[in-house]
């Protein structure tokens, strides 16, 4: 008996019992769909977060006060803020640091005419926007002259532009921030929401000198932003900054740092780890649901073999070999699980597409997972089809014909 005849035989047998076939493959459908949906969403989320992180500036390093071991609380744990002398020392002592800026920020009420808005205002050096790979789309960026002269100028994000200058040009408009008047010299490129859902365009940047003299009243700050000379210099730049800051902060040999250098790639690494754990967990769930699906198939196939004992007897009587019966029932099981797998792939991708749009992450077809899911569902059919099929193939023709 050839393969085509076997497959069409299996199909007609399954179509004869549509409802039962559909319910039998449900286990495989659900298992495969769940895996594909989670895999697609996981990859989408990873891609989305990765894009956000690289949008922060690829060679970026951040330094915050407080020992790395205490960072979980978020506070500096009483560790001293940084000073501009620290930055001078870094500039001299950290050869692989190319760009450097202080950053000090506070949410402040900002007023333009009758409109006002609470926005995070940050004092930075001109390097800051380069470190974050953030360009100005209208007007200009902050300059060294602005910094030297403590000019009352600022660049604003897109959200601020929309909110405070609706329908009119923001450039050269005047903002009042905390009783300080600032002239808008530039509008920043739109960044959208961050990986953690914050609006990155609801921001105002001003020269650090202006910030420290007119708003903060201190030139101490809680964040050092730096960029390494190149991607492969990030670790060197980090080591150099650490050693300079340890000297400046008089930390003894063997004592722990009272500041932490952070690299956005670490966030990526943590996310990758989380994704990895999630994937392993999902594989476990998938394995269990496919096992359950497979047992469902085996169960129904065993029932089917018993029900169809006389049919098997007739087939044997007209010349079926036991290998024909074996392949007939294995193919039935495989068709069930393969069709279940295909439906599961469709359902899983469909659900992932819908959910990806809903939570606003890119929809990704997990190209490796699709053939694997299909292959595994084929395998489930073979593994769980063999036992019932052997039972059918071993029947004695006469006994099968006389079966009541």
């Amino acid at each position, binding site marked *: *008996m050839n393969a085509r005849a076997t497959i069409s035989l299996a199909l007609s047998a399954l179509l004869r019992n549509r409802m039962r076939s559909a319910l039998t493959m449900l286990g495989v459908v659900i298992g495969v769909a769940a895996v594909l949906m989670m895999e697609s969403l996981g990859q989408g989320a990873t891609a989305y977060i990765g894009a956000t992180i690289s949008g922060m500036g690829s060679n970026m390093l951040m330094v915050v006060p407080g020992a790395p071991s205490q960072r979980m609380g978020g506070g500096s744990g009483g560790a001293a803020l940084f000073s501009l002398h620290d930055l001078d020392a870094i500039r001299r002592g950290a050869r692989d640091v190319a760009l450097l800026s202080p950053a000090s920020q506070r949410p402040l009420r900002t007023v333009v005419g009758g409109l006002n808005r609470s926005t995070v205002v940050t004092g930075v050096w001109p390097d800051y926007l380069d470190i974050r790979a953030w360009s100005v789309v209208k007007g200009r960026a902050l300059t060294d002259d602005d910094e030297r002269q403590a000019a009352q100028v600022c660049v604003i994000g897109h959200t601020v532009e929309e909110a405070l200058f609706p329908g009119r040009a923001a450039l050269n408009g005047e903002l009042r921030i905390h009783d300080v008047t600032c002239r808008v010299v530039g509008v920043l490129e739109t960044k959208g929401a961050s990986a953690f859902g914050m609006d990155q365009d609801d921001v105002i940047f001003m020269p650090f000198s202006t910030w420290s003299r007119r708003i903060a009243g201190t030139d101490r700050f809680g964040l050092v932003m730096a960029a390494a000379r190149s991607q492969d210099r990030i670790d060197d730049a980090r080591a150099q900054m650490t050693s300079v800051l340890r000297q400046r902060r008089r930390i003894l040999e063997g004592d722990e740092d009272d500041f932490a250098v952070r690299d956005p790639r670490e966030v990526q690494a943590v996310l990758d780890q989380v994704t990895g754990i999630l994937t392993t967990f999902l594989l476990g769930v998938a394995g269990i649901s496919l096992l359950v699906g497979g047992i469902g198939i085996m169960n129904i196939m065993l029932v089917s073999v018993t029900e169809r004992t006389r049919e098997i007897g*007739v087939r*044997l009587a007209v*010349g079926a*070999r036991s290998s024909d019966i074996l392949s007939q029932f294995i193919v039935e099981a495989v068709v069930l699980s393969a069709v279940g797998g295909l439906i599961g792939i469709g359902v899983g991708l469909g659900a992932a597409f819908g959910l990806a749009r809903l939570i606003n992450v890119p929809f990704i077809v997990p190209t490796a997972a699709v053939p694997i899911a299909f292959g595994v569902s084929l395998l489930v059919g073979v593994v769980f089809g063999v036992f019932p099929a052997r039972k059918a193939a071993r029947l*004695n*023709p006469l006994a099968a014909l006389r079966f009541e």
Partner: protein
Amino acid sequence: MRFANVSRLYGEGEATVRALDGVDLTIERGDFVAITGASGSGKSTAVSILGCLDLPTAGQYFIEGHPVQSLSGDVLAALRNAKFGFIFQSYNLLARTSALDNVSLPLIYAGVGALEREARGYAALAAVGLAGREDARPNQLSGGQQQRVAVARALINAPEVILADEPTGNLDSKTGEEIMQLISSLNEARGITVIMVTHDPKSAAWARRRVVFSDGKIASDTRVSA
């Protein structure tokens, strides 16, 4: 085909049933044999063994000189496919399967392609007078028509031997007569050997040789002169 001291035992120990008990029987090519005897005398068992649906427990069964016990399962399947055609009292058609598919079933296992299967299926149904009923399911056919489908299925692979176990047992006498006519014509026109179990003297009268079973043994074996 020759039985040499063939026995078929069912069960073990005290409960052993000797369905066949040392039977010697030779059947010539082209013969028409009726097997009769009381219920439980071993007729069906004998026919099943003759058709390679079952094997003797003891003794030897030779087909054209070859001992059947030495043949592999696949060879026995091939014999059932090509050499024998079966007709059963209860028709044994596949349910929810068209007459055409039922009739051409043996051809699937003979490796015949779909187009040829269909063509030969049509021809076989026409030969038993069922042209036009190709798409009918068994439950849409009368008993006589179902038995005709079974006859067509037995014929389709041009067998040398037809084994019929009470082919008219479920039919009224008129329909039974028609089926007997059909079977008899296969023997006369095509030279097919027919071995037929029957309770019905009218059916048995169509045969040229009558073998009577009793308690698993042959009680009498007579040739009927036409």
